């Protein structure tokens, strides 16, 4: 009876631990289908301010408290960044990205993932970050060859003002 109980205890504990060991890295998870790649559109970029700095009039300056007087007023708020991404000639993403921050003065940001089959792809990206209402301030297009499981990133360098494909 004692041996039977010990065997039973062993079986129960072994089953528990084996289950834990197995489920700690199985079943295998695959995020995207086999033979696919990921195109990632991701950047952080601040558009122009909503309005240019304006010189204050003498009356306006006088109205300000003495310790806060300044000669010009620069609105903090930024414009949204408008961006479009084409894959294979088809627009897969277009959005007006609002500025971040409570006062709306932070940069706009985007982080979008597109799963595409591995192979050659026409990629085109366009962005508008000024007051213009048509056309784009920054554009880039290229034909890229994507390997299976590749992570292809479409980024934007604010310093140089150009899109980067990597």
């Amino acid at each position, binding site marked *: 009876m004692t041996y039977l*109980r010990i065997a*039973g*205890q062993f079986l*129960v*504990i*072994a089953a*528990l*631990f*084996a289950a*834990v*060991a*197995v*489920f*700690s*890295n*199985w*079943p*295998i*998870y*695959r*995020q*995207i289908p086999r033979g696919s*790649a*990921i195109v*990632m559109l*991701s950047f*952080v970029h601040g558009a122009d301010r909503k309005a240019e700095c304006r010189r204050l009039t003498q009356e306006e300056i006088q109205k300000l408290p003495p310790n806060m007087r300044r000669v010009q007023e620069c609105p903090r708020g930024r414009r949204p960044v408008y961006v479009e991404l084409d894959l294979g000639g088809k627009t897969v993403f277009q959005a007006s990205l609002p500025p*971040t*921050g409570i006062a709306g003065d*932070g*940069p706009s*940001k985007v*982080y979008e993932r597109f799963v595409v089959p591995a192979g050659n792809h026409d990629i085109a990206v366009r962005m508008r970050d000024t007051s213009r209402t048509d056309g784009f301030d920054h554009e880039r297009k290229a034909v890229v060859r994507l390997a299976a*499981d*590749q*992570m292809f*990133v479409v*980024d934007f360098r604010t310093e140089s003002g150009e899109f980067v494909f*990597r």
Partner: protein
Amino acid sequence: MVGAVRNVLRYGFEFIERPFERLFGPALNPLSQLGALGFFFFWVVAVSGIYLFIFFDTGIERAYESVEYISRDQWFHAGVMRSLHRYASDLMVVMVTVHLLRQFAYDQYRGVRWYSWFTGLPIIWLLYGSGITGYWLVWDRLAQYVAITTSELLDRLPIFGEPIARNFISTGTLSSRFFTLMVFMHIAVPLFLLFLMWVHILRISRPKVNPPRALALMMLFALIGVSVWKPALSQGHVDLAKAPMDVGLDWLYLPLYPLTETWGRGGIWAFLGAFSLMIGLMPWLPPLRRARPAQVDLDHCNGCARCAEDCPYEAIRIVGRTDNLPFPTQAQVNPALCVSCGICVGACPSSTPFRRSEDLKTGIDLPDYDLKTLRERTIEAAKALSGPGRVLVFACDYGGGRRLDGAVRLPCVAMAPPSLFDFVLSRDLADGIVIAGCAESACYNRLGVEWTKQRIAATRDPYLRARVPRERIATIWASALETRRVAAEIASFTKEMAKRPREKLRSPQASPAVTTQPGSDRTLTKVGSTV
């Protein structure tokens, strides 16, 4: 709705607990040691983590290499430690989950128990936080997946300016200091977890924070065994130019991660928010309606502290005397912590039904079910007994005897003072007594079974007097499901009592030798000879 789910779960637990109790014995039943096992696995994780930290390098390239060195070159000590670290963490998740479900199933989360339930919620969050930061440190493909998905989830919250996930989508964006930060997180979060585990048990008297040594050893050997059989290994170096594909997920820690693909990140946060809100509010959905808390009658309390010793909920404190009686201390009940289980009534030496005063009083009593009522119900139930083998049953409201006709029902069998059993037998109200409590490893009021056993065995004050023949007292510890077993054992005990001649109790007698029958369906407490 909540009640129906609870009943189904309770049925499930009671269904498996009995075989577990038979297999391991009540003391080693893992299902009654879930909290203690959670603590045990935490310590295994802590010790193995400290050991691994000796070998771990926080450099961006060296992190993966150092873990590989641990797992391959030094597999026989550091590698085993890594596996212990991993599997003990996983087992902690299992213990916490089953513990949570069991407390819910047995309705041990409402009323004054809301505190432990509520403080368990941040423990779940921190446990997962600890595990997820740990997976990050290995810096293999799984770490890459965890890093990207976790940061994508965090980016969904309107907290961070620049998306954190951008750090993990191309090479050259991470520095070694990031790993230093992650190591700090992986130490700080578990430390805070330990602090909350302490907070979690603050309101519990005699919390089980250490499993019995035999059970702990079984678990430790099993952990070592599984670590050698299936060592925890890395899944290839991170390649940020590639998406992390074919990753072996730890489904105990990361079951929600794949769901980000279907539910979206907002959906995951909504689920987690709803889950946390539901768990947080459950003690009041609906609130537990309980009897009024115990009250101290200072005229009958000499501050002996037995009630405070026996209270499973730390609801009684011994404080300085507030009246003019010549005792230094008195008992004081905290109504916010009292569950009205009556265990204190059974512990009070003044609780004796032999008292001849017209209005039976004791030092501490339940206003809605006082000692006087208990004595009246006992006498009333005994009057209904007839024929040979008159057996009076004292049944717990939560055990297998709760639906028995003619039984004296109690919120906990430990509410019955040992002198009540003496009273029944010495006044010839019955030929035998059955105490039908909860299952040994699932006592609703935590310590009722234990205290009752010890009082009958005369190892815990107040003792059952030596003159009481133990063979005329049977204890049946059974879950609410085991009504048939309880009925069968009572019938068998009744037959046994019918064969015995009636006897008149005399006092005093020598101390009894107590024997129990471990492993038998019915644990009878018997004296070596008839008194």
